């Protein structure tokens, strides 16, 4: 802004009047002031506006995001939890139902553990490791000659103890897949054990307890372990001095597993080994 002093001199008849008028126009002062003020205002306004805008935006965005995230999280968590809970609930329900059915069947089939007659009870291939799952020991104490209890079944394991308290025959007849007899308890008064292991060609593990009172044939089971054979020999009834001879038929392969001393345990109790 420039300043120009104009001096007007008016000449009048009376006196000379000096009028000094200062005139301001859009000169350098105005421009400079405007420019500086604009720049400063712009810069200040920009910084202030930027900070304000950022803060406002952050707060608003944060609030909205938080709120929406919380809502979505709740929804997702509910859905996943509901699905997982439903699946777990179904599995628990299935297990409970299965247990109830298992108990209902076997309690009835084995008369709550009181059943003592099992002729043909597990006869034929329907009975396998899945279907055969008894709840109670199997006690055979029938007045009749119990026969074919497990004949032709495809079980590999007897699972429970089996107690023989009466005359039996062909109990495990042609149980080709039978590998393990967990525990077979003999009553010493039983003298007829005809063909109970006939064709049990896979039989490997046999735990005998009690007293074996009659001839027994294990020659169809050449895979028997040494301990299984000794388990049987240990249970042989002692007939020494009675004049009675019974025969334990083992077959050549099983006989070869025994020492002479072990064989003598049987022969000294009045048992002939074949």
């Amino acid at each position: 802004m420039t300043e120009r002093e104009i001096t007007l001199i008016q000449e009048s008849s009376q006196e000379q009047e000096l009028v000094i008028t200062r005139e301001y126009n859009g000169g350098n002062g105005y421009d400079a002031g405007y420019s500086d003020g604009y720049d400063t205002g712009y810069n200040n306004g920009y910084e202030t506006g930027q900070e304000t805008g950022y803060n406002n935006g952050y707060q608003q965005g944060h609030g909205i995001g938080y709120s929406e995230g919380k809502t979505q999280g709740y929804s997702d968590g509910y859905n996943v939890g509901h699905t997982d809970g439903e699946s777990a609930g179904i599995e628990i329900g299935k297990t409970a139902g299965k247990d109830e059915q298992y108990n209902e069947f076997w309690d009835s089939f084995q008369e709550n553990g009181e059943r003592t007659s099992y002729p043909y009870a597990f006869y034929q291939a329907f009975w396998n490791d899945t279907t055969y799952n008894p709840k109670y020991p199997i006690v055979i104490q029938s007045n009749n000659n119990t026969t074919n209890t497990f004949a032709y079944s495809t079980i590999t394991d007897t699972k429970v103890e089996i107690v023989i308290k009466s005359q039996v025959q062909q109990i495990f007849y042609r149980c080709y897949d039978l590998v393990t007899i967990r525990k077979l308890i003999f009553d010493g008064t039983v003298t007829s054990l005809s063909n109970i292991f006939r064709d049990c060609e896979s039989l490997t593990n046999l735990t005998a307890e009690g007293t074996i009172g009659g001839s027994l044939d294990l020659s169809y089971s050449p895979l028997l372990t040494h301990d299984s054979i000794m388990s049987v020999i240990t249970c042989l009834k002692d007939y020494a001095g009675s004049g009675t001879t019974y025969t334990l038929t083992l077959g050549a392969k099983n006989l070869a597993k025994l020492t002479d001393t072990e064989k003598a345990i049987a022969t000294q109790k009045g048992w002939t080994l074949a």
Partner: protein
Amino acid sequence: MKKQTIELVKLTSSEGKTLTNGETYSKEIYLGCNDSVSNWYEINDSDVPNDEPTEN
């Protein structure tokens, strides 16, 4: 100390023969203390019966 002498009597069939007492058939027999050699005799292998039990 206890000393015990245990007799183990073993019967072995001749070639082509099988030992039997009328009920049991085998190539070798270890006699029980109440059994006797006289209870056992040899038969031809071909005469050993195929004693399939009667299926009830």
